[in-house]
């Protein structure tokens, strides 16, 4: 494609600036020694050191990681099976449409609606069973519920690139169904499953609304902690914490990029 002119280039750089100036401000203030205001008091890493002495923050960080890891494992497992079932089994017109409709639900509904619907559902379940007290388990349930659809989407698109002939060849060689899945489909599907898992992980880290509504008093996550701290008044510690969360995001996103480019190369 032709090079764009100076006007488009400047405009585009300006738009990038709109995205990055706030983030850079956070990073700069996280290493600023002066506690108050916007004056530069010299470079320091002491805010980072303080983070690791703050029990609340460490607890929130471990909650965030547990939440992201457990929900990712469950949703990847469910999503892989779902993708295989939808893509490779014969479905009638009506049952197929019902499944598609349910899978599309998270895409067309604002997340706040799911969040409050879950609050109500957990409330009802609590009064019926005595379980489902709001906390990490309810947050995991909520995260999995919206991750599954997206994981399924990613794995399905990868599955479409795996030719049916391979399955037929396996059956011609008298492989059982389970053996065919295990030795033919799953190895080929691995990059897709990994990409789906990475997506689920970032979705969980990125979520605020579902966590905000379904969290209990003891299951604060990092975004919830930052949100509460901002309402009390931002401190340099929060800048340091946010910078670390951004770094984690960058690592996961780069991994995801690498996985997708890798799986494209393999398919091609």
């Amino acid at each position, binding site marked *: 494609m*032709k*090079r*764009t002119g100076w006007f*488009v280039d400047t405009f*585009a750089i300006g*738009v*990038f600036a*709109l995205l990055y100036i*706030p*983030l850079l*401000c*956070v990073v700069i*203030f996280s290493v600023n020694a002066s506690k108050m205001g916007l004056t530069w008091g010299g470079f320091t890493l002491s805010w980072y050191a303080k983070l690791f002495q703050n029990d609340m923050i460490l607890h929130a960080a471990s909650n965030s990681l547990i939440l992201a890891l457990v929900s990712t494992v469950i949703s990847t497992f*469910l999503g892989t*099976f*779902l993708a295989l*079932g939808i893509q490779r*089994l014969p479905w009638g017109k009506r049952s197929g449409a019902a499944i598609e409709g*349910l*899978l599309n*639900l*998270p*895409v*067309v*509904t*604002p997340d*706040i*609606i*799911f969040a*409050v*619907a*879950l*609050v*109500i*559902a957990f*409330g*009802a379940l609590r009064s019926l069973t005595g379980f489902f007290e709001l906390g990490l388990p309810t947050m995991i349930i909520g995260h999995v*519920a*919206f991750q599954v659809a997206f994981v*399924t989407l990613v794995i399905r698109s990868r599955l479409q690139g795996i030719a049916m002939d391979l*399955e*037929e*060849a396996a*059956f011609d060689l008298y492989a059982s*169904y389970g053996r065919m899945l295990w030795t033919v489909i799953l190895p080929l599907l691995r990059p897709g499953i990994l990409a789906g898992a990475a997506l689920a992980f*970032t979705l969980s880290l*990125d979520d*605020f*609304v579902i966590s905000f509504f379904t969290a209990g008093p003891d299951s604060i996550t990092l*975004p919830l902690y*930052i949100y509460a701290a*901002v309402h009390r008044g*931002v401190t340099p510690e929060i800048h340091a914490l*946010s910078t670390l*969360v951004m770094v984690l*995001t960058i690592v*996961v*996103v*780069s991994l995801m*990029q690498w996985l997708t480019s890798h799986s494209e190369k393999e398919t091609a």
Partner: protein
Amino acid sequence: MTNDTRVHRGEVVDRSTILGRKLLFVVPGMAWIVAFLALPCLALVAVAFASRGNLGDVEWTFTLENFWRLAGKDLFGWSPDNLMILGRSFWVAMVSTLLCVILSFPLAFFLASRGPKARAVWMTLLLIPFWTNLVIRTYAWLLVLAPELPIAKLLAWLGIIQPGFPAYPSEFAVWIGMVSAFLPFVALPLYTAVDKLDWSLVEASQDLYATPWRTFWTAIWPQTLPGISVGATLTLVPAMGMFVVPDMLGGARYMLVGNLIQQQFGTARDWPFGAMVSIALMALTLATLLMAGRKGKEARA
């Protein structure tokens, strides 16, 4: 081969085996979605027509009170407050999406015209804000809009805010927060469409002496519509229910429907009314998507 057996993709199986596999593969995931997404949404509808007990609990007596309250009825007569919040949320979502589309065009063309290496770098730069937690991205604006920095100074000079005060909470802050929050959601799908653009149509248009404006609308815009519709959906849906941005940057001055819902489930502890507002939000979102879908079809036809 009996009636019950058939060959499905090279494998001899009977019907019950296929049914068993369907159950095994699809039921766990679907059950999760039904139990924790679909059924709770139905419960939400039911609660919207229940009443609030004195202790903030849900009492199962059928009432339309919440609906009338949303429509504006209050103790002293009628007030348009709630409907205004709904209307404002719709307006903010629509205009933010439009602004994101406008800002994304140069970005998409810029990206598509880079070489492969540079493009990967710019792509990653676009993906990082896309995946950074919205709470962080929003509070970051509190720093940029501080009174000592140029934006607040400019606004003070223009007389929009008082000198020495930050540029938040304000309507302006909500707009800038919304647009920067959703920009990558539009820019990424639009870039995919621009990357696949058939340039021979653009050249043909230029050969026929069309103005750049006309070339854009007749040769470029229709080709990018699929990307725009994906981006617009990805933006409109969360933008309608947005509550982080107006909460942090708008305060009580610029409440959106997300804040109203949060209030009902938080401090006000009025689940039935909160459920009614949520249903209104859901209806508004679906109506907007359907409308946009129809417009899109017309444009393509």
